[in-house]
């Protein structure tokens, strides 16, 4: 019996290791003949007997449990013949299986039983069971609690188990699967045969996500004032991101007031904020606006929202600035090619908060007189001197600190392909750099047939955001003109360690001097090198070769990212600042 257990445990561990490998490759597998396990959402294919789809772009934890990070939750489905099975029955068997497993995990004799139980309970709090009868955490089910199914829980003819467990403990999955099978068989149901699994991508719900305001906000009836306040607050944050500023959110809401002087035609709205179709539908669902025979108006909730914005404008604007200062957490794949060789100069200042002992022979620096006197007095006493003397080792100096100011000129591709999230990310980077550092920021955009100085070098956030508001992607990619304009801006302004950052997702297709747009841009890049400006290109894989050439011409470096999103851009600049600092 003992040997059996040991062997079962070993098998579980081996299976766990394999699962770790497959999951790492974004794959799911069939476990036994009736189970499917992965980190993704599973779908049964109607009309195709025995087939299960694994949706590789739908993380199970994120989609089914609203987890924030992907890869946290293992998704196990065990299929059975039509019939009812109570989740409590499943939960019980799972709990026993876990208990058995954790015991084997640490079979040390001194291992106290209480700890095993605690360990098992800990797991039980992290495992959810869903059957057609209801759902709940193993722990709760075990204690007789049961939650009803949500309409999203399409659990027909299978038992779903969601397990929050680290990849080092996947060994627990096999015993859980076996326990589920046992529960199914005990309920008098046959196990269903999975004949085929297919990895596929689910269709993206929205073709263009960028204009869609994503809010966890639902219509809230009878909720506490606290919850309502947080919801409103977050909704305003999202709206401000969509419309550009609090003022514009206000203007938008006012355009639905009964006051005809504030109302706007669809056309006027479109010119100002682009396509609002999807948003309007969403706002209607949220209960902010309603359509009537006389036109669209704010609902009571909508009016209250407007009131809220009016009364809290200062705080809301401050919170937006706060969010811009924040460093995004997750970042994607970034490749760096090349190095900058330009020298940087730093600014030194004295830190009166910290003194250090004199430790070199240059005798330079700012002598900290009070600290030196105190030290001398103390030392004299400890040296048993009868009167105060100052020795060399008593000398204290203020510490010197330095930082490297880097004034940034952002050269943003504003051709049509940059519309949406990419544009927003580039603008975000500009604001983030300005709000989180002490440096000046300028923005040059290039689109249609020429480049434009959108924002001259400034430290003023209002000037910057006003300039960015007018960045509306469209048209061609006149890169050469963009580079030349930026070089001129840098040359004509007093700046510290200027950096020129190019953000583009395409290839130049509008020339400046000749008929060859690409050649012109390379030539323009040489001017960057002549001016000894640090040059950084940020682009995507598809234009890698050309941008490498461009970076080389400008004696700069290239970053290739998987996506031109906020976190990637901010990450790159963070890294750049650190590198400059340590050089």
């Amino acid at each position, binding site marked *: 019996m003992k040997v059996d257990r040991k062997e079962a445990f070993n098998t579980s561990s081996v299976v766990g290791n394999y699962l770790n490998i497959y999951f790492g490759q974004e794959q799911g597998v069939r*476990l036994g003949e009736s189970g499917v396990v992965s980190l993704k959402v599973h779908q049964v294919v109607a009309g195709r007997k025995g087939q299960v789809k694994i949706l590789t772009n739908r993380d199970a934890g994120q989609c089914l449990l609203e987890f924030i990070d992907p890869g946290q939750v293992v998704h196990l489905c065990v299929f059975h013949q039509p019939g009812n099975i109570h989740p409590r029955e499943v939960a019980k068997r799972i709990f026993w299986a876990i208990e058995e497993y954790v015991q084997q995990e640490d079979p040390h004799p001194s291992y106290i039983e209480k700890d095993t139980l605690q360990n098992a309970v800990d797991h039980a709090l992290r495992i959810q069971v869903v059957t057609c009868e209801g759902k709940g955490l193993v722990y709760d089910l075990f204690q007789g609690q049961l939650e009803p199914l949500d309409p999203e829980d399409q659990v027909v003819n299978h038992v779903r188990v969601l397990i929050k467990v680290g990849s080092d403990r996947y060994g627990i999955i*096999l015993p859980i699967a076996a326990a589920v099978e046992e529960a199914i068989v005990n309920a008098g149901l046959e196990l*269903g045969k999975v004949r085929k699994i297919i*990895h596929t991508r689910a269709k993206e719900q929205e073709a263009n996500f960028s204009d869609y305001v994503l809010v966890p906000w639902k219509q809230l009836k009878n909720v506490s004032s606290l919850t309502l306040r947080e919801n409103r*607050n977050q909704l305003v944050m999202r709206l401000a991101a969509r419309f550009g500023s609090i003022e514009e959110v206000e203007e938008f809401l006012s355009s639905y007031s009964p006051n005809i002087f504030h109302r706007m035609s669809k056309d006027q709205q479109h010119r100002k904020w682009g396509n609002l179709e999807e948003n309007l539908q969403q706002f209607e669902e949220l209960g902010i606006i309603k359509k009537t025979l006389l036109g669209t108006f704010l609902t009571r909730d909508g009016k209250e929202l407007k009131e809220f914005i009016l009364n809290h404008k200062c705080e809301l604007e401050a919170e937006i600035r706060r969010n811009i*200062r924040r460093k995004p957490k997750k970042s994607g794949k970034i490749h760096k090619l090349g190095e900058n060789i330009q020298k940087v100069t730093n600014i030194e200042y004295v830190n009166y*908060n910290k003194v250090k002992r004199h430790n070199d022979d240059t005798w330079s620096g700012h002598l900290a007189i009070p600290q030196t006197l105190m030290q001398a*007095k103390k*030392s004299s006493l400890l040296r048993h001197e009868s009167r105060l003397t100052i020795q060399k080792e008593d000398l204290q100096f203020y510490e010197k600190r330095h930082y490297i100011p880097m004034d940034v000129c952002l050269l943003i591709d504003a051709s049509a392909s940059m519309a949406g999230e990419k544009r927003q990310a580039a603008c975000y980077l500009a604001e983030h750099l300005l709000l989180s550092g002490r440096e000046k920021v300028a923005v040059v955009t290039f689109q249609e047939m020429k480049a434009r100085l959108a924002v001259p070098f400034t430290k003023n956030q209002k000037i910057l955001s006003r300039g960015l508001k007018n960045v509306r992607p469209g048209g061609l990619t006149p890169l050469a003109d963009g580079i030349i304009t930026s070089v001129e801006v840098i040359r004509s302004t007093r700046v510290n360690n200027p950096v020129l950052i190019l953000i583009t997702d395409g290839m130049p297709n509008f020339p400046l001097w000749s008929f060859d747009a690409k050649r012109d841009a390379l030539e323009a890049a040489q001017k960057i090198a002549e001016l000894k400006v640090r040059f950084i290109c940020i682009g995507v894989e598809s234009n890698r070769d050309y941008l490498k050439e461009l970076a080389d011409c400008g004696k700069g470096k290239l970053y290739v990212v998987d996506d031109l999103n906020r976190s990637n851009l901010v990450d790159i600049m963070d890294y750049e600042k650190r590198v400059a600092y340590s050089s």
Partner: protein
Amino acid sequence: MKPYFGLARHDGNQPLFNLVEMSIISTLAGEPLHLHAEGLRGTGKTTIMRAARELLPKITRITGCIYNCDPDRPHCPLHRHMSREEIKALGTEEIDMPFLEISHSAKVGTVAGSIDLAKITDTNNPQAALLPGIIPQAHRGIIFIDEINRLADTSPEITDILLDVMGNKPGRLQIEEAGLPTVEITIQVSVWAASNPDEDPGPLEEVRRQLSDRFDMVVYMGRPSSVDVVVRMLEGSDRARREDFDANSFAAKNQEFRQRVREMAETYRVTELPDFLRNFIARVYIKHNLESIRAIEAVQQGAVLYSILKKHKQIMINDVIEMLPLALKHRVDGDTLVKIMNGLESKSSRDSILNIKDRRPSKATKEREEAYFDGGARRLKDMGRQEIIATEKALNPNDF
């Protein structure tokens, strides 16, 4: 300065009033509660915190001990090794619970401790001795730091000290002075901080995230939410002005509160969070993948204190919900916070029970009739080790 009970309260600053009162109770009970009020200029955060000084109760210490030794638990270098009798012989005294400030330009020596200047410059009997700084002197009391974001930016050394002091409950402090033996003591202080995240160097969490996470609770100070509230505030301040002539009425209120603090601290010492709420909070933590275990501890500590302060008969789920934004807003993003709060709301509302009735029989029954899978699959326990896992490729080799 305006008396604490004369300050106007509204929905934007009420949480801070609650928190300072909760922190005083907790501090007296021996468990610090660290607060951080963030807000724009003019939101009254420092006014409220400084005014709360009036509410502080008395504590008992060994007579003359500058480290505020509790006669029952002496901790300072001078008293910690003494016997009960020796301590008794020294006698005790009552002092106001300490309330000391650290300015954003403070030096390490002032904060932690340094050589005692008075003693070393004594012409008759010069001595090299340690003078405990602000933190050790505030033991069993409160430290107030205005503009903590600037302090964290300009003085990483003091920040490190605060991280230790606030790292555990109780925290630790090392006092170092060249030539003298290092002193290490335990410290029990509640740190109250204030800052304006919109001014240089920006929000504390961007300057030093670790320090920001050390605060159990953070209040985003707000302004009154509607005109009605402002009108009521003005009325109130009118009344307050009239009552100013009668300073006695405020003194009486302070006295009454100080008395209540003692009772509430006693209640706090013996109150446990019910198991179901503990599990409830643990599940929020797991489901939303929160990183900071401190956040959960803060919610637990806060919920108990809040229910005691508000004289609730027992601790309710609403006490927990009330604490969530305070404990989480500086630790998670806005979406997550709203998701968490909305999730709790639906759980506590009655309609989830009603939902079972109209939801259950719809889709499921319709599709249950159809069998997607053939029965008769073998069980895992009947399969060999090599057969257990099958990949897509292995199941349908023809597709590859």
